[in-house]
């Protein structure tokens, strides 16, 4: 329903500037319907997947079916990099929405002679780890409002970086159940917390679009500092550890 949406239209294709080197390695693209597994827990991945459109997640499922979403992935993210490098998935990857993914053969990622590719993989791994630390802090110490607000702020910055969010809005088709599994809350509590944020005049959610009505206030509530989303940028070039020399175990 494009007519019903507010704000300027978003580009149809994400801007994937930084991921260019990885994008160039794509051998095949495919469409993935919502709620389809791209990778099963315990599997040995045959190819790596880079997300081009839509949202996927990494997750773990406990024996009784309880699920923890470990990461929500946006276009430009590598869905299963650690699994490819480790030759075994200790998590599953599932499409949260209808997605397009690019398949990259493992041998391209393992190519020792391609310094630019290795630098790009390092950046992906560092960013994944930084986001995971932030989620761990949230799960351990933030309350429900802070967790939800923090996730909304994080997704805004990550989507904006690939041209998929405006300064205060983005498309999201993530369900309450999925948010609950990502935030370690019950979906009833997520529902309550969404309505609290709405009543506080911080967000509006309609037709699959999240609008942040007061970005500074939501970031303040969340204690959100976007610095972690740019790992390795804070230091001047000379003081940075070289990103082009991965550990021998990778080779």
């Amino acid at each position, binding site marked *: 329903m494009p007519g019903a949406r507010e704000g300027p239209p978003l580009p149809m294709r994400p801007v994937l500037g930084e991921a260019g080197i990885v994008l160039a390695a794509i051998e095949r693209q495919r469409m993935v319907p*919502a*709620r389809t*597994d791209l990778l099963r827990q315990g599997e040995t991945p045959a190819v790596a997947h880079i997300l081009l459109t839509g949202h996927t*997640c990494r*997750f773990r*499922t406990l024996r009784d*079916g309880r*699920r923890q*979403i470990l990461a929500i992935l946006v276009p430009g993210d590598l869905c299963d990099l650690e699994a490819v490098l480790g030759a075994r998935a200790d998590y*599953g990857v*599932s499409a*949260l929405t209808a997605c397009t993914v690019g398949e990259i053969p493992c041998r391209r990622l393992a190519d020792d002679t391609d310094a630019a590719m290795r630098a790009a993989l390092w950046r992906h791994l560092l960013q994944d780890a930084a986001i995971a630390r932030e989620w761990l802090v949230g799960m351990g110490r933030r*309350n*429900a409002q802070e967790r939800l607000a923090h996730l909304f702020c994080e997704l805004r910055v990550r989507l904006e970086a690939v041209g998929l969010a405006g300064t205060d809005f983005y498309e*999201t*088709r*993530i*369900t*309450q*159940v*999925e*948010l609950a*599994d990502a935030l370690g*809350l*019950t*979906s*009833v*509590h997520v*529902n*309550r917390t*969404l*309505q*609290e944020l709405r*009543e506080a005049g911080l967000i509006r*959610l*309609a*037709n*699959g*679009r999240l609008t942040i009505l007061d970005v500074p206030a939501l970031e303040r509530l969340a204690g959100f500092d976007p610095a972690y989303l740019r790992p390795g940028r804070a230091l001047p070039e000379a003081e940075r550890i070289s990103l082009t020399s991965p550990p021998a175990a990778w080779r």
Partner: protein
Amino acid sequence: MWAGLRAGFPLGYAQPAINAEHPVPRYFIDTDDGDLMIVDDEGHDLPNLTAARRAANKVLPEMAREKIQDDDRRTLYARVRAEDGTDVYTATLSLVGKWNIKPPVD
């Protein structure tokens, strides 16, 4: 109002086909932490009444974790409504604290 963020089905499972004769029941769970009452206008797809009760019971300790701090009296409520509006279940969780000395003045 919350279209696009409806309570969905778990990940990794195929979404069940819609069966007009036996649709997944939808329950609405209102909550009140003593400061703010939230009427659920979104609802949750839950298989049966037992699951609806579990959902209402489980949200109370989560709310308690955030709300119970500097009070010695607080009651949290959760109520389940069926799709036809019937009030089917209520749960309350209460904190009752008591000073055994003269209460501090702060």
